[in-house]
Protein backbone atom coordinates (compact mmCIF):
# COMPACT_ATOMS: atom_id res chain seq x y z
CA UNK A 1 0.00 0.00 0.00
CA UNK A 2 2.75 2.40 0.99
CA UNK A 3 4.60 1.33 -2.09
CA UNK A 4 1.59 2.18 -4.19
CA UNK A 5 1.27 5.61 -2.58
CA UNK A 6 4.94 6.27 -3.17
CA UNK A 7 4.50 5.33 -6.78
CA UNK A 8 1.47 7.55 -7.12
CA UNK A 9 3.41 10.49 -5.75
CA UNK A 10 6.31 9.83 -8.13
CA UNK A 11 3.82 9.64 -10.93
CA UNK A 12 2.22 12.93 -9.90
CA UNK A 13 5.61 14.59 -9.74
CA UNK A 14 6.49 13.43 -13.25
CA UNK A 15 3.12 14.55 -14.50
CA UNK A 16 3.56 18.01 -13.01
CA UNK A 17 7.01 18.47 -14.49
CA UNK A 18 5.67 17.58 -17.91
CA UNK A 19 2.71 19.87 -17.53
CA UNK A 20 4.87 22.82 -16.53
CA UNK A 21 7.28 22.20 -19.32
CA UNK A 22 4.45 22.36 -21.84
CA UNK A 23 3.10 25.58 -20.39
CA UNK A 24 6.40 27.39 -20.36
CA UNK A 25 6.50 27.09 -24.13
CA UNK A 26 2.92 28.23 -24.47
CA UNK A 27 2.97 30.07 -27.78
CA UNK A 28 4.87 27.30 -29.45
CA UNK A 29 2.51 24.67 -28.14
CA UNK A 30 -0.74 26.35 -29.13
CA UNK A 31 0.49 27.13 -32.60
CA UNK A 32 1.85 23.61 -32.90
CA UNK A 33 -1.45 21.96 -32.07
CA UNK A 34 -3.36 24.05 -34.57
CA UNK A 35 -0.75 23.61 -37.27
CA UNK A 36 -1.04 19.87 -36.88
CA UNK A 37 -4.29 20.06 -38.84
CA UNK A 38 -2.85 21.98 -41.78
CA UNK A 39 -1.46 18.97 -43.66
CA UNK A 40 -4.78 17.19 -43.12
CA UNK A 41 -6.50 20.17 -44.65
CA UNK A 42 -4.36 20.01 -47.78
CA UNK A 43 -4.92 16.28 -47.93
CA UNK A 44 -8.68 16.79 -47.75
CA UNK A 45 -8.57 19.33 -50.56
CA UNK A 46 -6.49 16.95 -52.64
CA UNK A 47 -9.09 14.21 -52.24
CA UNK A 48 -11.90 16.63 -52.91
CA UNK A 49 -10.21 17.46 -56.24
CA UNK A 50 -9.71 13.79 -57.02
CA UNK A 51 -13.33 12.95 -56.29
CA UNK A 52 -14.66 15.84 -58.33
CA UNK A 53 -12.39 14.83 -61.21
CA UNK A 54 -14.21 11.50 -61.26
CA UNK A 55 -17.06 13.55 -62.65
CA UNK A 56 -19.83 12.14 -60.49
CA UNK A 57 -21.71 14.25 -58.03
CA UNK A 58 -19.70 14.12 -54.85
CA UNK A 59 -21.23 12.04 -52.13
CA UNK A 60 -21.95 9.04 -54.31
CA UNK A 61 -18.60 8.45 -55.90
CA UNK A 62 -16.55 5.81 -54.16
CA UNK A 63 -12.92 4.84 -54.23
CA UNK A 64 -12.34 1.38 -52.75
CA UNK A 65 -15.47 1.72 -50.68
CA UNK A 66 -14.68 5.21 -49.37
CA UNK A 67 -16.89 8.14 -50.24
CA UNK A 68 -15.42 11.61 -50.07
CA UNK A 69 -17.03 12.00 -46.64
CA UNK A 70 -15.48 8.73 -45.50
CA UNK A 71 -12.06 9.90 -46.59
CA UNK A 72 -12.30 13.14 -44.64
CA UNK A 73 -13.53 11.26 -41.58
CA UNK A 74 -10.71 8.78 -42.04
CA UNK A 75 -8.04 11.48 -42.02
CA UNK A 76 -9.48 13.12 -38.94
CA UNK A 77 -9.62 9.78 -37.15
CA UNK A 78 -6.09 8.89 -38.19
CA UNK A 79 -4.83 12.04 -36.41
CA UNK A 80 -6.46 10.71 -33.25
CA UNK A 81 -4.75 7.36 -33.73
CA UNK A 82 -1.43 9.11 -34.21
CA UNK A 83 -2.02 11.26 -31.15
CA UNK A 84 -2.00 7.98 -29.25
CA UNK A 85 0.63 5.99 -31.09
CA UNK A 86 3.25 8.56 -32.06
CA UNK A 87 6.16 8.82 -29.63
CA UNK A 88 8.19 11.85 -30.62
CA UNK A 89 11.72 11.71 -29.32
CA UNK A 90 11.41 8.38 -27.55
CA UNK A 91 13.73 6.17 -29.57
CA UNK A 92 16.17 8.99 -30.24
CA UNK A 93 16.09 9.90 -26.54
CA UNK A 94 16.97 6.37 -25.48
CA UNK A 95 19.70 6.12 -28.11
CA UNK A 96 21.11 9.46 -26.98
CA UNK A 97 21.17 8.38 -23.33
CA UNK A 98 23.05 5.26 -24.31
CA UNK A 99 25.48 7.25 -26.36
CA UNK A 100 26.11 9.87 -23.71
CA UNK A 101 26.51 7.22 -21.04
CA UNK A 102 23.54 8.51 -19.05
CA UNK A 103 22.15 5.01 -19.20
CA UNK A 104 24.52 4.14 -16.35
CA UNK A 105 22.20 6.02 -14.05
CA UNK A 106 19.54 3.37 -14.53
CA UNK A 107 21.98 0.59 -13.90
CA UNK A 108 22.92 2.09 -10.53
CA UNK A 109 19.62 3.46 -9.29
CA UNK A 110 16.73 1.27 -8.15
CA UNK A 111 14.81 2.30 -11.23
CA UNK A 112 13.65 0.28 -14.18
CA UNK A 113 14.48 2.11 -17.39
CA UNK A 114 11.54 0.93 -19.47
CA UNK A 115 8.98 1.54 -16.72
CA UNK A 116 10.43 4.96 -16.08
CA UNK A 117 10.18 5.93 -19.72
CA UNK A 118 6.66 4.50 -19.95
CA UNK A 119 5.56 6.54 -16.95
CA UNK A 120 7.11 9.63 -18.42
CA UNK A 121 5.42 9.04 -21.71
CA UNK A 122 2.00 8.49 -20.14
CA UNK A 123 2.37 11.78 -18.28
CA UNK A 124 3.50 13.45 -21.47
CA UNK A 125 0.52 12.11 -23.40
CA UNK A 126 -2.02 12.97 -20.71
CA UNK A 127 -0.72 16.51 -20.61
CA UNK A 128 -0.95 16.66 -24.35
CA UNK A 129 -4.57 15.48 -24.33
CA UNK A 130 -5.53 18.00 -21.67
CA UNK A 131 -4.01 20.94 -23.52
CA UNK A 132 -4.89 19.77 -27.03
CA UNK A 133 -8.47 18.74 -26.23
CA UNK A 134 -9.79 22.18 -27.12
CA UNK A 135 -8.35 22.47 -30.63
CA UNK A 136 -9.29 18.84 -31.33
CA UNK A 137 -12.86 19.43 -30.15
CA UNK A 138 -13.17 22.52 -32.33
CA UNK A 139 -11.96 20.72 -35.44
CA UNK A 140 -14.19 17.72 -34.90
CA UNK A 141 -17.21 19.89 -34.16
CA UNK A 142 -16.67 21.86 -37.35
CA UNK A 143 -16.27 18.64 -39.30
CA UNK A 144 -19.13 16.73 -37.68
CA UNK A 145 -20.98 16.68 -41.00
CA UNK A 146 -18.41 14.26 -42.40
CA UNK A 147 -19.36 11.60 -39.87
CA UNK A 148 -22.43 9.44 -40.15
CA UNK A 149 -23.01 9.71 -36.40
CA UNK A 150 -21.65 7.67 -33.51
CA UNK A 151 -21.02 4.00 -34.15
CA UNK A 152 -22.72 1.43 -31.86
CA UNK A 153 -21.39 0.82 -28.35
CA UNK A 154 -19.43 -2.35 -28.99
CA UNK A 155 -17.64 -0.71 -31.92
CA UNK A 156 -16.74 2.24 -29.72
CA UNK A 157 -15.45 -0.15 -27.07
CA UNK A 158 -13.33 -1.92 -29.66
CA UNK A 159 -12.15 1.46 -30.96
CA UNK A 160 -10.94 2.66 -27.57
CA UNK A 161 -9.30 -0.69 -26.89
CA UNK A 162 -7.41 -0.46 -30.14
CA UNK A 163 -6.38 3.13 -29.35
CA UNK A 164 -4.90 2.16 -26.01
CA UNK A 165 -3.22 -0.81 -27.67
CA UNK A 166 -1.84 1.48 -30.37
CA UNK A 167 -0.30 3.64 -27.63
CA UNK A 168 1.38 0.59 -26.13
CA UNK A 169 2.47 -0.73 -29.50
CA UNK A 170 3.92 2.64 -30.44
CA UNK A 171 5.75 2.87 -27.14
CA UNK A 172 7.28 -0.59 -27.04
CA UNK A 173 8.13 -0.61 -30.72
CA UNK A 174 10.02 2.70 -30.47
CA UNK A 175 11.65 1.65 -27.21
CA UNK A 176 12.94 -1.50 -28.91
CA UNK A 177 14.31 0.57 -31.79
CA UNK A 178 15.99 2.96 -29.36
CA UNK A 179 17.78 0.00 -27.72
CA UNK A 180 19.58 -0.60 -30.99
CA UNK A 181 21.73 2.26 -29.79
CA UNK A 182 23.52 -0.30 -27.62
CA UNK A 183 24.95 -1.87 -30.77
CA UNK A 184 25.15 1.06 -33.22
CA UNK A 185 26.07 4.54 -32.10
CA UNK A 186 24.52 6.36 -35.03
CA UNK A 187 20.83 5.46 -35.05
CA UNK A 188 19.54 8.70 -36.52
CA UNK A 189 19.25 7.41 -40.07
CA UNK A 190 17.63 4.23 -38.88
CA UNK A 191 15.05 6.28 -37.02
CA UNK A 192 14.43 8.32 -40.12
CA UNK A 193 13.67 5.16 -42.07
CA UNK A 194 11.37 3.99 -39.29
CA UNK A 195 9.57 7.34 -39.37
CA UNK A 196 9.29 7.07 -43.12
CA UNK A 197 7.68 3.65 -42.94
CA UNK A 198 5.29 4.68 -40.19
CA UNK A 199 4.30 7.73 -42.16
CA UNK A 200 3.30 5.81 -45.25
CA UNK A 201 2.50 2.32 -44.06
CA UNK A 202 0.61 3.09 -40.86
CA UNK A 203 -2.20 4.52 -42.93
CA UNK A 204 -1.47 8.08 -41.92
CA UNK A 205 -1.05 9.13 -45.53
CA UNK A 206 -3.92 7.17 -47.12
CA UNK A 207 -6.42 4.44 -46.15
CA UNK A 208 -4.54 1.18 -46.57
CA UNK A 209 -7.52 -0.45 -48.34
CA UNK A 210 -6.36 1.41 -51.43
CA UNK A 211 -3.62 -1.14 -51.81
CA UNK A 212 -6.19 -3.93 -52.16
CA UNK A 213 -7.06 -3.17 -55.76
CA UNK A 214 -3.50 -2.49 -56.75
CA UNK A 215 -2.77 -6.15 -57.22
CA UNK A 216 0.51 -7.75 -56.35
CA UNK A 217 1.68 -8.57 -52.86
CA UNK A 218 1.57 -4.96 -51.55
CA UNK A 219 -1.64 -5.15 -49.58
CA UNK A 220 -0.64 -8.44 -47.99
CA UNK A 221 2.80 -7.16 -47.00
CA UNK A 222 1.53 -3.92 -45.50
CA UNK A 223 -1.22 -5.67 -43.60
CA UNK A 224 1.19 -8.17 -42.07
CA UNK A 225 3.28 -5.37 -40.59
CA UNK A 226 2.56 -4.06 -37.09
CA UNK A 227 2.66 -0.49 -38.45
CA UNK A 228 -0.95 -0.50 -39.64
CA UNK A 229 -2.12 -0.72 -36.03
CA UNK A 230 -0.62 2.68 -35.36
CA UNK A 231 -3.12 4.62 -37.45
CA UNK A 232 -5.18 2.65 -39.94
CA UNK A 233 -6.67 -0.01 -37.72
CA UNK A 234 -8.36 2.16 -35.06
CA UNK A 235 -9.72 4.54 -37.70
CA UNK A 236 -11.09 1.71 -39.81
CA UNK A 237 -12.69 0.18 -36.74
CA UNK A 238 -14.45 3.45 -35.97
CA UNK A 239 -15.71 3.77 -39.55
CA UNK A 240 -16.91 0.14 -39.35
CA UNK A 241 -14.73 -0.90 -42.25
CA UNK A 242 -13.54 -3.75 -40.08
CA UNK A 243 -16.28 -5.70 -38.36
CA UNK A 244 -17.24 -9.09 -36.97
CA UNK A 245 -14.61 -11.81 -36.78
CA UNK A 246 -12.16 -9.63 -38.71
CA UNK A 247 -12.37 -7.04 -35.93
CA UNK A 248 -11.96 -9.68 -33.25
CA UNK A 249 -8.90 -11.22 -34.88
CA UNK A 250 -7.51 -7.79 -35.64
CA UNK A 251 -7.54 -6.93 -31.94
CA UNK A 252 -6.00 -10.29 -31.08
CA UNK A 253 -3.17 -9.69 -33.54
CA UNK A 254 -2.68 -6.18 -32.16
CA UNK A 255 -2.38 -7.57 -28.63
CA UNK A 256 0.04 -10.12 -30.04
CA UNK A 257 2.22 -7.38 -31.50
CA UNK A 258 2.16 -5.45 -28.21
CA UNK A 259 3.28 -8.55 -26.30
CA UNK A 260 5.91 -9.24 -28.92
CA UNK A 261 7.42 -5.78 -28.57
CA UNK A 262 7.22 -5.81 -24.76
CA UNK A 263 9.34 -8.95 -24.84
CA UNK A 264 11.57 -7.59 -27.58
CA UNK A 265 12.27 -4.36 -25.69
CA UNK A 266 13.04 -6.29 -22.48
CA UNK A 267 15.35 -8.70 -24.26
CA UNK A 268 17.17 -6.00 -26.19
CA UNK A 269 17.62 -4.00 -22.99
CA UNK A 270 18.91 -7.08 -21.17
CA UNK A 271 21.42 -8.03 -23.86
CA UNK A 272 22.22 -4.42 -24.59
CA UNK A 273 23.26 -3.79 -21.00
CA UNK A 274 25.36 -6.94 -21.08
CA UNK A 275 27.07 -5.76 -24.20
CA UNK A 276 27.44 -2.28 -22.75
CA UNK A 277 29.03 -3.37 -19.48
CA UNK A 278 31.30 -5.77 -21.34
CA UNK A 279 32.68 -3.28 -23.86
CA UNK A 280 31.45 0.17 -23.02
CA UNK A 281 32.48 2.34 -20.15
Amino acid sequence: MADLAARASTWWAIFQINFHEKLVYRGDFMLGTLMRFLPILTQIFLWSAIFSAKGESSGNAEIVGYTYYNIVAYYLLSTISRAFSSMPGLASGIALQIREGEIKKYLIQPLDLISFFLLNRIAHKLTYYIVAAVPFAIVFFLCRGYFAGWPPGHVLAAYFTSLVLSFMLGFFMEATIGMIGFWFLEVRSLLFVYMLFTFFLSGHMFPLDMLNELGGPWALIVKSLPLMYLAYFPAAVFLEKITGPELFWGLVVQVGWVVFFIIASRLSFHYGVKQYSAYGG
Partner: protein
Amino acid sequence: MEDRPSYAAVFYMFLRNSLVRDLSFRSNFWIECVSSLSWVIMNLGFYLLIFSYTTSIGPNTGWGKWEFFVFLATTLLVNSLVQMFFMPNIQEFSELIRTGKLDFALLKPIDTQFLVSFEKVNWPSTANFLFGLLLMGISLFQLTHRPERPIELTATMVVTFVIFLLCGVAILYSLMIVLAASSIWLGRNTSLYDFWFYITSFSRYPMEIYNAGTLGMSLQLIFTFAIPILIVVNVPARIMAQPFGVSETQMWALPIYMLVATGMSLWFSRWVFKMSLRSYRSASS
Protein backbone atom coordinates in the same frame (compact mmCIF):
# COMPACT_ATOMS: atom_id res chain seq x y z
CA MET B 1 42.73 47.06 -47.27
CA GLU B 2 39.20 46.76 -48.57
CA ASP B 3 36.46 46.88 -46.00
CA ARG B 4 34.17 44.17 -47.36
CA PRO B 5 35.20 40.55 -47.35
CA SER B 6 34.82 38.66 -50.60
CA TYR B 7 31.52 36.89 -50.15
CA ALA B 8 32.18 34.55 -53.04
CA ALA B 9 35.47 33.37 -51.52
CA VAL B 10 33.83 32.85 -48.14
CA PHE B 11 30.96 30.95 -49.74
CA TYR B 12 33.41 28.74 -51.57
CA MET B 13 35.04 27.92 -48.20
CA PHE B 14 31.62 26.99 -46.81
CA LEU B 15 31.04 24.62 -49.72
CA ARG B 16 34.48 23.14 -49.44
CA ASN B 17 34.55 22.71 -45.66
CA SER B 18 31.10 21.15 -45.63
CA LEU B 19 32.07 18.69 -48.33
CA VAL B 20 35.20 17.71 -46.43
CA ARG B 21 33.13 17.18 -43.30
CA ASP B 22 30.39 15.22 -45.06
CA LEU B 23 32.89 12.98 -46.77
CA SER B 24 34.75 12.27 -43.56
CA PHE B 25 31.61 10.48 -42.37
CA ARG B 26 31.28 8.52 -45.54
CA SER B 27 28.87 5.81 -44.45
CA ASN B 28 26.66 8.45 -42.90
CA PHE B 29 26.74 10.40 -46.12
CA TRP B 30 25.45 7.47 -48.14
CA ILE B 31 22.87 6.48 -45.56
CA GLU B 32 21.54 10.01 -45.62
CA CYS B 33 21.37 10.00 -49.41
CA VAL B 34 19.52 6.71 -49.44
CA SER B 35 17.10 7.59 -46.66
CA SER B 36 16.12 10.93 -48.14
CA LEU B 37 15.74 9.29 -51.55
CA SER B 38 13.49 6.61 -50.11
CA TRP B 39 11.26 9.36 -48.71
CA VAL B 40 10.92 10.73 -52.23
CA ILE B 41 10.27 7.32 -53.72
CA MET B 42 7.56 6.58 -51.17
CA ASN B 43 5.90 9.87 -52.08
CA LEU B 44 6.11 8.93 -55.70
CA GLY B 45 4.48 5.60 -54.86
CA PHE B 46 1.64 7.41 -53.13
CA TYR B 47 0.95 9.55 -56.18
CA LEU B 48 1.15 6.57 -58.49
CA LEU B 49 -1.45 4.98 -56.25
CA ILE B 50 -3.65 8.05 -56.54
CA PHE B 51 -3.35 8.09 -60.31
CA SER B 52 -4.47 4.50 -60.42
CA TYR B 53 -7.82 5.82 -59.17
CA THR B 54 -8.07 9.05 -61.13
CA THR B 55 -6.82 10.58 -64.34
CA SER B 56 -6.33 14.12 -63.11
CA ILE B 57 -6.15 16.25 -59.97
CA GLY B 58 -9.36 18.22 -60.12
CA PRO B 59 -11.75 18.36 -63.10
CA ASN B 60 -10.51 20.17 -66.21
CA THR B 61 -7.39 21.52 -64.56
CA GLY B 62 -4.97 19.81 -66.86
CA TRP B 63 -2.99 18.28 -64.03
CA GLY B 64 -2.82 14.78 -65.44
CA LYS B 65 -0.30 12.19 -64.34
CA TRP B 66 2.78 13.54 -66.18
CA GLU B 67 1.93 17.18 -65.62
CA PHE B 68 1.65 16.39 -61.96
CA PHE B 69 4.99 14.62 -62.00
CA VAL B 70 6.53 17.79 -63.44
CA PHE B 71 4.97 19.52 -60.47
CA LEU B 72 6.41 16.90 -58.13
CA ALA B 73 9.85 17.22 -59.70
CA THR B 74 9.69 21.00 -59.22
CA THR B 75 8.78 20.47 -55.56
CA LEU B 76 11.76 18.17 -55.24
CA LEU B 77 14.15 20.63 -56.83
CA VAL B 78 13.00 23.52 -54.65
CA ASN B 79 13.04 21.47 -51.46
CA SER B 80 16.39 19.86 -52.10
CA LEU B 81 17.96 23.27 -52.68
CA VAL B 82 16.45 24.57 -49.47
CA GLN B 83 17.61 21.51 -47.57
CA MET B 84 21.05 21.71 -49.05
CA PHE B 85 21.77 25.33 -48.25
CA PHE B 86 19.44 26.56 -45.57
CA MET B 87 17.85 23.84 -43.49
CA PRO B 88 20.92 22.90 -41.39
CA ASN B 89 21.92 26.52 -40.88
CA ILE B 90 18.63 27.92 -39.84
CA GLN B 91 17.93 25.05 -37.50
CA GLU B 92 21.26 25.88 -35.96
CA PHE B 93 20.48 29.58 -35.82
CA SER B 94 18.03 29.31 -32.95
CA GLU B 95 20.35 26.80 -31.30
CA LEU B 96 23.14 29.36 -31.53
CA ILE B 97 20.98 31.92 -29.81
CA ARG B 98 20.04 29.47 -27.08
CA THR B 99 23.61 28.47 -26.34
CA GLY B 100 25.06 31.94 -26.76
CA LYS B 101 27.35 30.88 -29.58
CA LEU B 102 25.86 33.51 -31.81
CA ASP B 103 28.40 35.85 -30.18
CA PHE B 104 31.10 34.57 -32.49
CA ALA B 105 29.04 35.21 -35.58
CA LEU B 106 28.44 38.78 -34.41
CA LEU B 107 32.17 39.41 -34.03
CA LYS B 108 33.09 38.64 -37.60
CA PRO B 109 33.62 41.46 -40.08
CA ILE B 110 31.00 40.02 -42.39
CA ASP B 111 27.23 40.26 -42.74
CA THR B 112 25.75 38.21 -39.91
CA GLN B 113 22.74 37.00 -41.88
CA PHE B 114 25.00 35.76 -44.65
CA LEU B 115 27.24 33.93 -42.17
CA VAL B 116 24.35 32.37 -40.30
CA SER B 117 22.40 31.38 -43.43
CA PHE B 118 25.11 29.75 -45.49
CA GLU B 119 27.75 28.38 -43.16
CA LYS B 120 26.89 24.70 -43.45
CA VAL B 121 25.99 22.98 -46.70
CA ASN B 122 24.20 19.67 -46.62
CA TRP B 123 25.72 17.80 -49.54
CA PRO B 124 23.65 14.60 -49.29
CA SER B 125 20.67 16.63 -50.53
CA THR B 126 22.21 16.57 -53.99
CA ALA B 127 20.81 13.04 -54.26
CA ASN B 128 17.29 14.44 -54.12
CA PHE B 129 18.20 17.23 -56.48
CA LEU B 130 19.49 14.75 -59.07
CA PHE B 131 16.42 12.59 -58.62
CA GLY B 132 14.28 15.68 -59.21
CA LEU B 133 16.15 16.36 -62.45
CA LEU B 134 15.62 12.74 -63.52
CA LEU B 135 11.92 12.83 -62.76
CA MET B 136 11.64 16.15 -64.58
CA GLY B 137 13.40 14.66 -67.60
CA ILE B 138 11.17 11.60 -67.75
CA SER B 139 7.97 13.61 -67.29
CA LEU B 140 8.95 16.17 -69.90
CA PHE B 141 9.81 13.40 -72.31
CA GLN B 142 6.33 11.97 -71.80
CA LEU B 143 4.69 15.37 -72.25
CA THR B 144 6.64 16.29 -75.35
CA HIS B 145 6.06 12.92 -76.97
CA ARG B 146 2.38 12.43 -76.28
CA PRO B 147 0.05 12.16 -79.26
CA GLU B 148 -2.36 14.93 -78.17
CA ARG B 149 -1.15 18.49 -77.68
CA PRO B 150 2.51 17.67 -77.10
CA ILE B 151 4.42 20.36 -75.23
CA GLU B 152 7.11 22.19 -77.13
CA LEU B 153 10.10 22.76 -74.92
CA THR B 154 11.84 26.10 -75.54
CA ALA B 155 14.92 27.74 -74.12
CA THR B 156 12.79 30.60 -72.77
CA MET B 157 10.74 28.08 -70.80
CA VAL B 158 13.84 26.60 -69.24
CA VAL B 159 15.34 29.98 -68.36
CA THR B 160 12.15 31.36 -66.82
CA PHE B 161 11.67 28.05 -65.02
CA VAL B 162 15.10 28.36 -63.40
CA ILE B 163 14.47 31.99 -62.44
CA PHE B 164 11.17 31.21 -60.77
CA LEU B 165 12.59 28.09 -59.16
CA LEU B 166 15.16 30.31 -57.47
CA CYS B 167 12.42 32.76 -56.50
CA GLY B 168 10.64 29.84 -54.85
CA VAL B 169 13.80 28.94 -52.94
CA ALA B 170 14.14 32.55 -51.83
CA ILE B 171 10.56 32.67 -50.55
CA LEU B 172 11.01 29.45 -48.58
CA TYR B 173 14.29 30.74 -47.19
CA SER B 174 12.62 33.94 -46.02
CA LEU B 175 9.86 31.98 -44.38
CA MET B 176 12.39 29.82 -42.62
CA ILE B 177 14.31 32.81 -41.26
CA VAL B 178 11.07 34.33 -40.02
CA LEU B 179 10.07 31.06 -38.35
CA ALA B 180 13.47 30.63 -36.73
CA ALA B 181 13.54 34.21 -35.51
CA SER B 182 10.03 34.00 -34.09
CA SER B 183 10.90 30.75 -32.35
CA ILE B 184 13.44 32.82 -30.42
CA TRP B 185 10.67 34.98 -29.03
CA LEU B 186 8.53 31.96 -28.32
CA GLY B 187 11.47 30.50 -26.49
CA ARG B 188 11.88 27.18 -28.18
CA ASN B 189 13.30 25.78 -31.34
CA THR B 190 12.64 22.05 -31.26
CA SER B 191 9.50 22.20 -33.35
CA LEU B 192 10.88 24.49 -36.02
CA TYR B 193 11.04 21.54 -38.37
CA ASP B 194 7.44 20.58 -37.55
CA PHE B 195 6.19 24.09 -38.25
CA TRP B 196 8.08 24.06 -41.44
CA PHE B 197 6.59 20.74 -42.46
CA TYR B 198 3.04 21.83 -41.63
CA ILE B 199 3.19 25.17 -43.38
CA THR B 200 4.97 24.00 -46.50
CA SER B 201 2.39 21.25 -46.98
CA PHE B 202 0.46 23.95 -48.82
CA SER B 203 3.09 24.15 -51.49
CA ARG B 204 2.85 20.46 -52.29
CA TYR B 205 -0.22 20.40 -54.52
CA PRO B 206 -1.46 22.37 -57.52
CA MET B 207 -3.32 25.42 -56.28
CA GLU B 208 -6.38 24.48 -58.33
CA ILE B 209 -7.42 22.05 -55.60
CA TYR B 210 -8.34 25.05 -53.46
CA ASN B 211 -10.79 26.31 -56.08
CA ALA B 212 -13.67 24.92 -54.03
CA GLY B 213 -15.76 26.61 -51.37
CA THR B 214 -15.13 29.66 -49.22
CA LEU B 215 -12.54 27.89 -47.11
CA GLY B 216 -10.60 26.86 -50.21
CA MET B 217 -10.73 30.34 -51.67
CA SER B 218 -9.67 32.00 -48.45
CA LEU B 219 -6.81 29.54 -48.01
CA GLN B 220 -5.77 30.30 -51.55
CA LEU B 221 -5.77 34.03 -50.82
CA ILE B 222 -3.94 33.69 -47.50
CA PHE B 223 -1.24 31.41 -48.84
CA THR B 224 -0.78 33.46 -51.99
CA PHE B 225 -0.73 36.93 -50.53
CA ALA B 226 -0.11 36.80 -46.79
CA ILE B 227 2.33 33.88 -46.72
CA PRO B 228 3.17 33.28 -50.38
CA ILE B 229 3.80 29.59 -49.97
CA LEU B 230 1.31 28.47 -52.59
CA ILE B 231 3.13 30.07 -55.51
CA VAL B 232 6.53 28.64 -54.60
CA VAL B 233 6.11 25.48 -56.67
CA ASN B 234 3.02 26.36 -58.66
CA VAL B 235 4.48 29.19 -60.71
CA PRO B 236 7.61 27.41 -61.99
CA ALA B 237 5.75 24.10 -62.39
CA ARG B 238 3.07 25.73 -64.54
CA ILE B 239 5.74 27.17 -66.81
CA MET B 240 7.06 23.69 -67.49
CA ALA B 241 3.93 21.54 -67.37
CA GLN B 242 1.57 24.02 -69.05
CA PRO B 243 -1.64 22.51 -67.70
CA PHE B 244 -4.50 23.58 -69.97
CA GLY B 245 -6.78 24.65 -67.11
CA VAL B 246 -4.81 27.79 -66.25
CA SER B 247 -6.26 31.02 -67.60
CA GLU B 248 -4.17 33.31 -69.80
CA THR B 249 -4.22 36.08 -67.21
CA GLN B 250 -2.97 33.79 -64.47
CA MET B 251 -0.20 32.58 -66.74
CA TRP B 252 1.43 36.01 -66.79
CA ALA B 253 -0.01 37.79 -63.74
CA LEU B 254 1.05 35.23 -61.15
CA PRO B 255 4.72 35.11 -62.20
CA ILE B 256 4.89 38.90 -62.07
CA TYR B 257 3.34 38.82 -58.64
CA MET B 258 5.86 36.16 -57.63
CA LEU B 259 8.76 38.46 -58.46
CA VAL B 260 7.23 41.11 -56.22
CA ALA B 261 6.50 38.57 -53.50
CA THR B 262 10.09 37.30 -53.59
CA GLY B 263 11.46 40.78 -53.13
CA MET B 264 9.07 41.54 -50.29
CA SER B 265 9.74 38.23 -48.56
CA LEU B 266 13.47 38.73 -48.66
CA TRP B 267 13.11 42.26 -47.38
CA PHE B 268 10.76 41.16 -44.61
CA SER B 269 13.00 38.29 -43.54
CA ARG B 270 15.96 40.64 -43.37
CA TRP B 271 13.96 42.98 -41.20
CA VAL B 272 12.87 40.17 -38.87
CA PHE B 273 16.42 38.88 -38.70
CA LYS B 274 17.68 42.29 -37.66
CA MET B 275 14.94 42.60 -35.10
CA SER B 276 15.82 39.25 -33.60
CA LEU B 277 19.47 40.22 -33.38
CA ARG B 278 18.48 43.45 -31.72
CA SER B 279 16.44 41.66 -29.12
CA TYR B 280 19.27 39.19 -28.63
CA ARG B 281 21.63 42.08 -28.05
CA SER B 282 19.47 43.81 -25.55
CA ALA B 283 18.20 40.68 -23.78
CA SER B 284 21.41 38.80 -23.14
CA SER B 285 24.21 39.59 -20.79
